[in-house]
């Protein structure tokens, strides 16, 4: 089996513009940045959340807190994932009670990651509201979960994979659609 690149979905400037648009949408819909916090899901949700927070500083002049959440311990497939998935540290240094939280991730697919993330969040307290922001929504949901803020909807087949490459982690920046072929 080989993995081939089928299409580029976003270039680096497009990723940037999309994140700015998402920042505006969130501030508009929530009506400001008071009690607002972003929670980046490890790994690629973290730089995305940081960049959205940076864009919000330009809008409202306010530093929106950014938390880091590793969902490995909250997964529902302990017996199926590669053995001993490496745990990364979560870091949510603010209280979540009565906060307006926005979970940030790169790709929304089955919804299981978001289910796990919500379990993790509720171990920390009782937020007022939790919404979801993703760069790409590729469909194929297995949970009743939807994103309120979506960078782009992409129709995909089961065999396809969306790769979000970010300069903070991957040393290049673009979103590509790849496929597995025999």
């Amino acid at each position, binding site marked *: 089996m080989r993995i081939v690149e089928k299409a580029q979905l976003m270039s680096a400037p497009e990723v940037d513009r999309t994140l700015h648009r998402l920042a505006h949408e969130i501030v508009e819909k929530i009506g400001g940045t008071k009690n607002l916090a972003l929670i980046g899901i490890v790994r690629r949700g973290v730089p995305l959340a940081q960049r959205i927070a940076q864009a919000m500083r330009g809008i409202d002049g306010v530093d929106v807190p950014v938390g880091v959440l590793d969902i490995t311990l909250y997964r529902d497939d*302990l*017996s199926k994932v590669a053995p001993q998935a490496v745990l*990364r540290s*979560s870091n949510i240094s603010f209280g979540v009670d009565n906060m307006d939280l926005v979970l940030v991730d790169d*790709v929304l697919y089955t919804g299981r990651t978001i289910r796990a993330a919500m379990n993790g969040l509720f*171990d920390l307290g009782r937020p007022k509201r939790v919404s979801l922001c993703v760069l790409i929504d590729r469909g194929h949901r297995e949970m009743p979960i939807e994103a309120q803020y979506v960078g782009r909807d992409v129709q995909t087949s089961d065999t396809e994979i969306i790769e979000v490459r970010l300069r903070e982690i991957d040393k290049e920046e673009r979103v590509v659609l790849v496929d597995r072929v025999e």
Partner: protein
Amino acid sequence: MTHRFRDLLALEPLTADELSFLLDQSKPFQEIQRHPLKKLATLRGKTVALAFFETSTRTRISFGTAASRLGADTMNLQAEASSLKKGETLLDTAFNLNAMKPDCLVMRHAASGAPSYVARHLDIPVVNAGDGTHEHPSQGLLDALTIRDRLGTIKDLNVTILGDILHSRVARSNIHLLGKFGCRFTLCGPAMWVPRELEKIAPGTPIRCVYRIEEGLEGADVIIMLRVQTERLDDPPLSANDYILLYQLNGERLRRANSQAIVLHPGPINRGIEITPDVADGPRSCVLEQVTNGVAVRMAILYLLISGATETDAHPALEAQPKESTNASD
């Protein structure tokens, strides 16, 4: 970077890389100790057998708490109530526990090597919770984690271990772990407990034995106290008063160590015997952090061993992933 462990029987055979991995993987569990809700569902439906053939309070409670915070259930065997008293062999007891289908066996035994012996006959992971005078791996790890948190590193430190080192599995686990990171050891205590042969237990690690506490504390970054087993003070004869006079760690003696030096003790402490209350409760003391970190380290151990042992087929989404990418596993 990941490592796989089938069992955790000793720290001596592990590499610095593997030990660092175990310490790093304990960090997320340290955070969970600070959460208002500390219970995870990660190991829901799994069972941890706690077999303490030698009595223990804090290690047993610590492993039990670690298991329950991961969502696992526990089954308990305690020496006093066990059928060992009725003449069952160690292996028969282990086979019987295993027949109740636990996913991991945590075991303490008075005989060095007993957990390794049992592990060779069982197909589930075995964790050594202290065996004779051999090792106490989870204690060694929680001590290193505590030192790393306080001093920012475990590399190239001067470590002084005080007390009955001859009979201490804690001291051996500390030496085998910290020695791999370039630490230098000074072992200090009455000559009957600090024989010169101890200088050779970890080839490549500088170890020296000294018999005057003032000399032992000079230049120390870390002081690891061991509990004086008062039952051992009579044989060979050394009165508690003599021990206090010669080896008690008090505020004045502590001044000989480095100004940032920290004091560890695996507990239970004998206040007024090996350590004075002003040191035990002072800012240099890490005793209670050690206890908190113990739960985190044991959660990491149970998580790594049990999740590693339950590997079945790879997740279809992960299987197709190029290396580290995680988005398709959503």
